[in-house]
């Protein structure tokens, strides 16, 4: 019989159903033979889950076996208890298990502890009164029982750290004894004393010591001892070392331990074993939170891992990069992530990396334009996997633009967004979320800059609605976008003729099963029938950012209510005081849920409520009487219903208000501008990989130089470049304060040459420029050497003579490859009048060299660069050009300088 049951186990293992034989396994646990009994228990634990019908038949046997004199029988039953007892049957065996905790055999005590652990996992309340038993068993004479007890304690401590702080001393002393080889030799593994117990203890200590200085201080000595004792030549030694690093990075930081941890990490990273590299990267990711500077020395190892063909290692490295992202290296990292995201097709990981890209981009984006481009890429490749909120943020960003008072930049941003979206629409299959963004942007700004005609945009929108005809949300967005475009056209006084496909589309939607679509279609019809003035007030162009004030108290209705009450109407009873109306409120909740899941929030702050209410007769006025619930379908309607003294409207408006607030916080970037702006300007240089030239302080660059020169032979320039752009961060952020002052600017300009800051001779300038090719070969050394260095003082002189500059500007605009330069120059010369603008000019002047490389480094530009006077002008041109065509992902926000300079 035993053989047959084992065959059955095989059958199941190979993926075939063997349920016909389960009952025989259950019968087998009654057998008198010990081996057969245990095999029977094994089979039932493999076959059945805890909710299986046959469990009832087993519980009785388990109860009997737990009382057996033979400890092997008890152990077999306890194994089954761990696997098969569910919440309801816990009380049936619990008393016996508790008795077994004092069993003379250590194996039984161990298994009884684990059974309690299992009960704790299943239902913590069932064993909450028995927690003291775990503490008692920690002092068990048998190391096996003690080791097993660590498992439930680990879980308990994870859930509630503070109740177990008193055990820190015990854990530390146990760990000390283990490390000093006080345990029986049988627990040794590869000459390490009980490594698995050590690891478990270190995990527990990490939990207990996290942000607790007092508890951590007790641990320092023992952790330091283990660091010293660990044999780093064996795998298990490294496993314990790794656990030590995790512990050190979790507890209150101690300098000595951090140094040991950093040493261990560098040993891991330098090892040839991929396993150790993996552990090293992981450990680095943990330690970097406490001491960011240790990343610096491992940069090349990290790059190696990033480019390793091993997918696991690569992912781990991305995780590390994610942890060390700053505003200075975000572009490089996110670009890499997106590239990687495109190359994989594992949806689970794709979702994860997409959400990380989004998170990093939101947190550190150097410019809005870059953010939009990045988001486009993410949406295009993983659109269905990202959260809808991200799309809303993107729309919001496009709508709000850079800031309050820079309209030209805003409209540039928008038209570039429109352009890119029109281009992207050509792609065959786009994710729904991305289409929603596209439709909204096209509707809002498609015709704003006059580049595209209304009929062109509407044609595109109709195409979208047709091509994705099974996606109602997209269709709804498209209809609303159409409505906006027609409204803008009417408001501008132009005659609107609907495209034939648009007509047919509308007819289809008017008969749509979706009330939402139907309503939108009716609204569109109604809007088109109105005169210009009315339309203007319904859908004012570019009003999406205007705040809508919601009178939550509905004070404007007071008169009306007063009047009604005087006429004998029932006063309003708050919802909480009403009874028997539960179903209605439920209904309402449901609707709200639907509204939010539809994600049509943007409409809420787009339309001024009063006018809408007045002008759109057909659908919205349906919401006048008692139960306005269905109209809460999407947010705009809930605003309209504010005119009605109903519960729904009130609740709806608060909800909307809340949501807006949340978004505001998410987008609190404006407030950060002053602090991040300088690093933004340096990160622009980072893109071109010339970080060394202008963005690092002396000390850091020296260390890096030595490191580089040592390894120079075998390291390709691309890697160094990448390393520089990834790790150049910390040094540059330190420089933040310096960039604001023009006096310190020149010094940072020639840091590479290690010249003392006071010496500003042209000679040192030259070396500073010529040196970088030695260190990092960035492609165009010849061009660079012919281009003379920028002398900041000369630049200043040039600035003091604006007239000559302007005249030369005209000359050069003819040679330079910049077509629009005259107008832009005009713009800029106007602004340079203010004295403080010199600073911003210098900034742009300094950022010029990388830009030239980027734009194309045409010879005309190089010529322009060689003459010193008009340098600034050229740089301005290029800056403006770049900003306009949006070539650089990092084109700066003009507001940056305003922020710096006051």
């Amino acid at each position: 019989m035993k053989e047959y049951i084992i065959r059955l186990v095989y059958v199941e293992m190979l993926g075939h159903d063997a349920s016909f034989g389960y009952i025989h396994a259950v019968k087998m646990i009654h057998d008198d033979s010990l081996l057969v009994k245990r095999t029977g228990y094994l089979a039932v634990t493999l076959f059945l889950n805890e909710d299986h019908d046959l469990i009832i038949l087993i519980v009785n046997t388990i109860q009997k076996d737990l009382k057996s004199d033979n400890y092997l029988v008890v152990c077999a039953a306890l194994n089954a208890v761990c696997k098969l007892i569910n919440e309801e049957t816990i009380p049936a065996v619990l008393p016996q298990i508790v008795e077994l905790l004092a069993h003379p055999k250590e194996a039984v005590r161990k298994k009884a502890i684990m059974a309690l652990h299992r009960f704790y996992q299943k239902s913590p309340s069932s064993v909450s009164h028995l927690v003291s038993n775990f503490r008692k068993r920690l002092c068990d004479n048998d190391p096996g029982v003690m080791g097993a007890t660590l498992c439930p304690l680990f879980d308990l401590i994870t859930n509630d750290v503070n109740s177990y702080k008193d055990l820190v001393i015990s854990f530390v002393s146990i760990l000390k004894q283990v490390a000093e080889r006080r345990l029986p030799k049988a627990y040794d593994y590869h000459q390490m004393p009980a490594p698995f117990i050590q690891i478990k203890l270190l995990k527990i200590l990490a939990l207990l010591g996290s942000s607790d200085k007092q508890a951590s201080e007790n641990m320092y000595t023992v952790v330091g001892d283990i660091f010293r004792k660990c044999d780093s030549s064996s795998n298990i030694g490294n496993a314990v070392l790794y656990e030590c690093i995790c512990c050190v990075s979790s507890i209150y930081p101690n300098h000595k331990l951090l140094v040991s941890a950093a040493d261990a990490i560098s040993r891991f990273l330098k090892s040839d074993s991929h396993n150790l590299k993996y552990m090293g990267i992981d450990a680095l990711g943990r330690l970097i939170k406490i001491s960011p500077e240790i990343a610096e020395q491992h940069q090349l190892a990290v790059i190696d891992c990033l480019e390793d063909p091993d997918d696991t290692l690569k992912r781990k490295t991305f995780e590390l990069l994610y942890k060390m992202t700053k505003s200075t290296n975000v572009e490089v990292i996110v670009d890499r992530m997106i590239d990687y995201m495109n190359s994989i097709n594992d949806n689970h990981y794709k979702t994860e990396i997409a959400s990380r890209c989004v998170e990093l981009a939101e947190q550190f984006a150097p410019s809005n334009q870059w953010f939009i481009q990045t988001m486009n890429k993410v949406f295009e490749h993983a659109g269905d996997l990202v959260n809808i909120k991200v799309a809303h943020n993107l729309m919001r960003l496009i709508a709000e633009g850079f800031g309050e008072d820079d309209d030209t930049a805003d409209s540039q941003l928008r038209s570039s967004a429109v352009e890119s979206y029109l281009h992207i629409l050509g792609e065959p299959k786009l994710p729904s979320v991305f289409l929603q963004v596209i439709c909204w942007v096209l509707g809002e700004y498609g015709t704003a800059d006059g580049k595209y005609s209304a009929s062109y945009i509407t044609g595109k929108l109709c195409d979208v609605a047709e091509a994705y005809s099974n996606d109602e949300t997209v269709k709804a967005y498209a209809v609303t976008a159409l409505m906006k475009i027609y409204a803008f056209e009417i408001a501008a006084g132009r005659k609107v003729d609907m495209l034939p496909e648009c007509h047919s589309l509308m007819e289809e939607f008017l008969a749509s099963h979706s009330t939402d679509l139907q309503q939108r279609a009716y609204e569109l019809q109604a809007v088109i029938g109105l005169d210009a003035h009315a339309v203007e007030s319904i859908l004012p162009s570019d009003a999406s950012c205007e705040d809508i004030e919601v009178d939550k108290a509905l004070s404007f209705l007071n008169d009306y209510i007063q009047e009604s009450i005087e006429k004998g109407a029932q006063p309003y009873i708050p919802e909480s005081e009403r009874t028997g109306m539960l179903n209605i409120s439920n209904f309402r909740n449901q609707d709200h849920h639907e509204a939010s899941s539809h994600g049509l929030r943007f409409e809420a702050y787009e339309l001024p409520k009063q006018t809408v209410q007045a002008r759109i007769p057909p659908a919205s006025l349906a919401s006048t009487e008692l139960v306005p619930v269905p109209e809460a379908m999407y947010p705009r309607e809930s605003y309209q219903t504010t005119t009605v003294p109903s519960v729904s409207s009130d609740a709806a408006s608060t909800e909307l208000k809340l949501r807006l607030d949340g978004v505001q916080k998410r987008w609190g970037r404006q407030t950060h501008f002053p602090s991040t702006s300088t690093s933004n300007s340096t990160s622009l240089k980072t893109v071109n990989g010339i970080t060394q030239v202008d963005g690092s302080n002396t000390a850091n660059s020296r260390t890096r130089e030595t490191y580089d020169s040592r390894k120079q032979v075998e390291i390709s320039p691309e890697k160094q470049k990448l390393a520089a752009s990834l790790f150049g961060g910390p040094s540059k952020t330190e420089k933040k304060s310096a960039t604001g002052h023009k006096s310190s600017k020149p010094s940072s300009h020639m840091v590479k040459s290690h010249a003392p800051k006071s010496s500003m001779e042209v000679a040192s300038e030259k070396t500073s420029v010529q040196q970088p090719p030695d260190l990092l070969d960035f492609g165009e050394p010849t061009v660079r050497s012919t281009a003379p260095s920028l002398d900041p003082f000369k630049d200043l002189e040039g600035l003091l003579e604006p007239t000559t500059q302007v005249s030369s500007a005209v000359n050069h605009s003819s040679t330079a490859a910049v077509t629009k330069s005259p107008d832009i120059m005009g713009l800029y010369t106007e602004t340079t009048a203010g004295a403080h603008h010199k600073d911003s000019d210098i900034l742009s002047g300094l950022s010029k060299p990388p830009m030239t490389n980027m734009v194309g480094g045409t010879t005309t530009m190089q010529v322009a660069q060689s003459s010193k006077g008009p340098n600034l002008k050229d740089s301005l041109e290029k800056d403006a050009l770049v900003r306009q065509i949006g070539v650089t992902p990092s084109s700066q926000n003009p507001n940056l300088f305003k922020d710096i300079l006051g």
Partner: protein
Amino acid sequence: MGIRFILMVNKQGQTRLAQYYEWLTLEERRALEGEIVRKCLARNEQQCSFVEHRNYKIVYRRYASLFFLVGVDNDENELAILEFIHLLVETMDRHFGNVCELDIMFHLEKAHFMLEEMVMNGCIVETSKAQILTPVQLLEKTS
């Protein structure tokens, strides 16, 4: 819950032993095994012994024709699990004497008994070979 499952799979991808510490239906098991076996068998010696799969990691080690795969939570110490696999193999080695795939095939229940002693509720509870093997040997003697 640290360890989610332990699998032994041969080079052809046939499962030789499977122990799950969380309940999966037969279908789920089959799909999971297929996926991860394909993933792990495709890797070479130089690559690291860890593979991320869905929301957990797989630590694997190869002994001749047999692969040992252990699925663990994300915060588990991978290197320790790798050594745990070796400890398991050493333990079986001590019992069977130069353990091979056939030993596990023909003494499936014993391999399971050893695992039951070493791992409970997904936690490593016993690492002393003597302690692990005593009950197994006693069982043998009684029958």
